[in-house]
């Protein structure tokens, strides 16, 4: 692929807006596909982005997803105004979840979101303050060997 400039975009995310869940990730997936990014990287990015989108929709009150595609990587930043994560280490544990029952009945909230994100990305940073919100920054490398 050939990206000389950084391609950027931003989406609004709202807690409880399950109808539009996945729209941002699907659009990012098609942008990356059109750019000719290898399919396995596109898939990993879409999975991580969708799980992060769901986290904002389930917990985050209101937030944004911002992406920046450069020649070497895709960086996606999720910022929300939610309750924040009390214990990040615990939240990273597979099976741990604070999602309400009705969300679990939909098949979400199984405590797999953050672990799924970690598995599918090259870098993951969580910055969270209780009562203020959470910022999640994920990076997926487009080339193993960095820029030419």
């Amino acid at each position, binding site marked *: 692929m050939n990206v000389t400039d950084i391609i950027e975009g931003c989406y609004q995310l709202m807690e409880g807006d399950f109808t539009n869940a996945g729209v941002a990730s699907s659009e990012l997936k098609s942008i990356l596909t059109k750019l000719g990014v290898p399919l396995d990287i596109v898939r990993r990015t879409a999975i991580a982005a*969708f799980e992060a989108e769901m986290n904002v929709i389930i917990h985050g009150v209101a937030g944004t997803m911002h992406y920046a595609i450069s020649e070497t990587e895709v960086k996606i930043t999720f910022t929300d105004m939610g309750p924040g994560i009390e214990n990040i280490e615990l939240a990273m544990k597979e099976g741990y979840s604070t999602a309400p029952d009705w969300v679990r009945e939909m098949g979400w909230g199984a405590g797999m979101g953050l672990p799924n994100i970690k598995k599918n990305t090259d870098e993951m940073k969580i910055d969270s303050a209780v009562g203020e919100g959470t910022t999640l920054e994920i990076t997926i490398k487009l080339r193993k060997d960095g820029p030419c």
Partner: protein
Amino acid sequence: MLTVNDVVKKLGFEIKINGDLDKEVTGCYISDLLSDVMAKSKDGELWITLQTHPNIVAVAVVKGISAIIITNNRDPEPDTAKKAETEKITVLKTGHTTFETAGMIYTLLKSENLL
């Protein structure tokens, strides 16, 4: 090559939304846990589920699912149907249970040497 259309014809599932019946079927995954499908399903697989809400379409898009099969005679919610039509995701329906549906698909995929 096995297509969604072949599966529909051979196993008699009802087509609720005709997304892309020519899509190739590579296998099958079963789960009602959406994050599990996100983690484990593979491109081109059929997905058997009881879930009927619109998020199943988004998961199918992201994961490249060839068709969603809803079991136990459940119908996709109106919003799910609308979204599936826009996203061109095939949604099938069957009166069989998830176990029976899995058995039927397993037998078919085995006979097609896809397992």
